[in-house]
């Protein structure tokens, strides 16, 4: 199945959770914020969130800026 990850199509296996996705991308869950279908996920419950075909996921972090 495919999700839209940060605006781009992204293939994931059925049954993938947000936690699986973060692990796959080698992202520190403490340093990113995940938005799932326009809803911001709570840091503690985000990893367990299951993903479905067509879901929109945004993963953001803090970068240098003024």
């Amino acid at each position: 199945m495919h999700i839209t990850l940060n605006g781009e199509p992204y293939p994931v296996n059925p049954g993938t959770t947000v936690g699986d996705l973060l692990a796959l991308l080698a992202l520190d869950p403490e340093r990113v914020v995940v938005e799932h279908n326009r809803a911001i996920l709570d840091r503690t419950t985000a990893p367990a969130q299951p993903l479905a075909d067509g879901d929109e996921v945004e993963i953001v972090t803090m970068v240098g800026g003024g």
Partner: protein
Amino acid sequence: MTDDTPLQIGDHTFHSRLIIGSGKYKDFAETRAALDASGAEMITVAVRRVNITDPAKENLLDALDLERTTILPNTAGCTTADECVRTARLARAAGITDLVKVEVIGDPKTLYPDTAATLEATEILAKEGFTCLPYTTDDPVVAQRLVDAGAAAIMPLAAPIGSGLGVCNPYTLRILLEILTVPVIVDAGVGTASDATVVMEMGADGVLMNTAIAGAEDPIAMARAMKLGVEAGRLAYRAGRIPKKLYATASSPLEGVVR
């Protein structure tokens, strides 16, 4: 002279009146060194999508000492109130701060803020409990509207972002400083240390800058220059400068001159 009072923004207390940005440094080590040299206790950051194709890069937050540095997320790049509110909520969900630099850009060439959208976003975010520091023009009416909307501080530009022009309109800035009841942090347009001194001498509560430090030939040295410039300006403001006069006043006694 009594000790200076700290800068109070919402529930946050700062002893340094310099706030720096974290953009445009060559690496995180330089960012950290500039922060140390500047003495700033607050640093702005931007919220961006992670790079999916190269996600394992070091994170800025891991490069900063979060015990002694307050993070001020911005909503830079947003061009609508909706984008700004969404970005601010994402920033707060990172769990490190309730502060947000509310920034909605209305024009790509001048990077002037869209003040109507900034006001709309500030109203929403202040109601949601954010400590809002809106980046705005030096328009006193807009600034007062932002305070009415719940802004904890007002951040008027001295000149366009990254321009290094220094204060273009000292007269409107003076009006802002006179009428506003919340801290005024001059944000954007500072080019060198004397620019920072000027705004502090005028009575600004603080200064925020990024390019002036990060874009200098030696960012670390400029960070220290800005620290000293801000301190000098603040001290001169508190010391109370002499009035400007058209004609001279002798410094030495007029009596007893040997003739």
